[in-house]
């Protein structure tokens, strides 16, 4: 099971839970599973996130693979200048 860590304000949708374990194969399936468990999470939440999978940063990458031993961090989207 992948270890999922929720940073920033995501914990407000999950009643304070900031770490969980989830079965998932991709970023898209991860978001779907999270929303299934915590329906308060907005549908377009992925638009506001950057997702680190084992230290590699992804943005807008539905099908990025999440392995069974992956460590995944959900962060706010990263902008630049």
């Amino acid at each position, binding site marked *: 099971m992948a270890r999922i*860590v929720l*940073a*920033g*304000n995501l914990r*407000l949708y999950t009643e304070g839970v900031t770490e969980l374990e989830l079965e998932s194969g991709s970023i898209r399936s991860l978001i779907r599973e999270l929303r299934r468990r915590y329906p308060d999470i907005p549908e*377009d939440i992925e*638009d*506001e996130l*950057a997702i*680190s999978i*084992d*230290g*590699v*940063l*992804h*943005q*807008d*990458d539905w099908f*990025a693979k999440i392995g069974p031993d992956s*460590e995944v*961090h959900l*962060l*706010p*989207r*990263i*902008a*630049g*200048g």
Partner: protein
Amino acid sequence: MAAAVEKIFDDTVTDRETRDKTLKWVGTRAPRPDGVDKVTGRAKFGADTYLPNMLHGKVLRSPHAHARIRSIDMSKALALPGVKAAVNRDDFPDHPEGAVQPAGEMVIDYRDMTRNIMAREKALYEGHAVAAVAAVNERVARQALSLIEVDYEILPHVIDVEEAMKPGAPLVREDLITEGVEPAPEEPSNIAKRVEFGHGDLDVGFARADVIIERSFKTQPVHQGYIEPHACLASFSEDGQAELWCSTQGHYVARGHCARLLQMDVSKLRVTCSEIGGGFGGKTVVYLEPVALALSRKACQPVKMVMTREEVFRASGPTSGASMDVRIGATKDGRITAGEAILKFQAGAFAGSPVPAAAMCAFAPYDLENVRTIGFDVLSNRPKVAAYRAPGAPLGEYAVESVVDELAKNLAIDPLEFRLKNAAKEGSDSSYGPKFGPIGCVETLETAQKHDHYLSTLKPGQGRGVASGYWFNIGGQTSATLNLCEDGSVALVVGTPDVGGSRASLAMMAAESLGIELDKVRPLIGDTSALGYNMLTGGSRVTFAGGIAVHGAAVDMINQLRERAAATWDVPIDDVEWHGGQAVAVNGYKDQEGPMGMLDIAKDMAKSGGPIVGRCSTNAQGAGPSFGCHIVDVDVDKETGKVSVARYTVIQDAGKAVHPSYVEGQYQGGAVQGIGWALNEEYIYDKNGKVENAGFLDYRVPVCSDVPMIDTVIVEVPNPTHPYGVRGVGETPLVPPLAAISNAVENALDIRFTELPMSPPRVLAAIESAG
């Protein structure tokens, strides 16, 4: 098929020298392909295009920092001979709250954006656009503006971030409830959002500390300071198709914003980016463009709009001013046990300051067990902030690196040694969560320790300061095309505006990947019709993501070239490889056929299967962060309070410097912007919320005589996700200077400044009160 293409970046070869020996172009200081046009004045920037029948557009701007707009009467302006069109809030449809769509890099709320480009219910800052006209020349346009009658109800205003947070402060939005607080507040306020990051247990961490230092910091907003004001030329046809030329960091992004604001199909709008005279994040958003398009649509004539310098200061987005509290505890042998930061950033008239990024990376150079940062995004009656080079990070790290320096001094540990004891490394948990991959934090610190600058003796009265810096960098959607011309030369088409030499780097990577001469590759920046989507130039992404796309296009082209050679020789494709810019037969067919170079294949491509085009469209992921360390020596004139920079060295990890001169240029430019931010730059407001220094005379950016040579050291810890090991470098250089200079001043005067800028009046007052 891909196996027969040489792997460019061989990460099994850990010896950089050996690996670099095989590179012909990447890593050299090749001539810049767009250089001659820039040194002769031929290159066309945003205001350099003229069209027949062109009109001049001008914007009427609010003279008030905060006012309800009761009515706008444009009838007299429209009646003036020579005025062809006028627009105001009635000409832009409203957008629902939270109509958020990923565009560019930042999350965009179109409800806010439509109000920013043209005020609706209220004017929210001095300079806010209220109406616009297009006329046959500038003089008539100016006259027309004076004939527009606006009925304002002036409201109390608020500028400072802490004033804006106080209960009872004038509300920029009457219905704003703070996001990120549970339970949600009942009363509206100017606090748009609260964010929190961190891990571990602060109480445990601080309890273990032998020393705890706590400081509060205050900074003023500063502008990106690009020398070229915003400029565009819009041309609408009667059938609803339109062309737009503009100075922008992202023409695909501008296209998306304008299409949405004008409610037209994206494909009906073609945007060409001009050369861009500086952006630094400030040209990632639109101001004039949708207005020019709206005017052009009404007039059915081209409309040119250019901001004056005054308008740039009054109406385009600076970065946040901030109030910050930082508390850090350490053991007496120099190990940080806990770090906490509370950051309050001005967002300006609409939500969206870079406080989340600041909160995430304020402590990024350190491997900490217990860390927490809280950020507040606060509205005030100022232009909406726009990105400025590593948005948020310079502020967060100014505060943290200042306190780190004080801790080191308090514990009598060398500041670089202190940082090394706590440095983030590959495998450490970053302060914002994920584990770091390969990074150069330790390398930059160790390089600094051994550098001649750090080892040299200071002159009497001088002070020395150091600071670390960090930026995540990003990847993003990027497309590139390589078109083979019939004479074997190659046109490279990319979609990212070139702010500082990226055409050179991208052409070099293309030539390297193809194995051909650099002067056979001509790089061009296509308009929005030429390629698939390209995210904007920013986030230090172009050499990284552009390089991935260019390399991908080269690999695609190579495979087609191999196919043509194989077909021409009647040899199986698996027995054809590509080496040194040529197709060569291998295995059993070695020495029987070929080789065939680009020209050999190109001259017959019509007959062998048609045009050969290498393409790659990708959404690049895995951008590698860039760490930096700056060393600065200052002199302080105790009679005038003037701080002068005597020596400056930038040390930063580039992963792989494709063109070292342009990497050095990024390091030097960011450092000098930081010198300006630290020592002189700030917006000065009068009691009515109007900017008093809206020009380059009194908004004092560094000039040539203010600064010494800026020495640079390029550290290279390759990024494994890029074919050449590239990390973005453009933003990190602005992150360390604020603290490095502040630490140097402290070293010279034994006075710790916690307010920026450290301008002569402030320094003098502090010296005098210190006795």
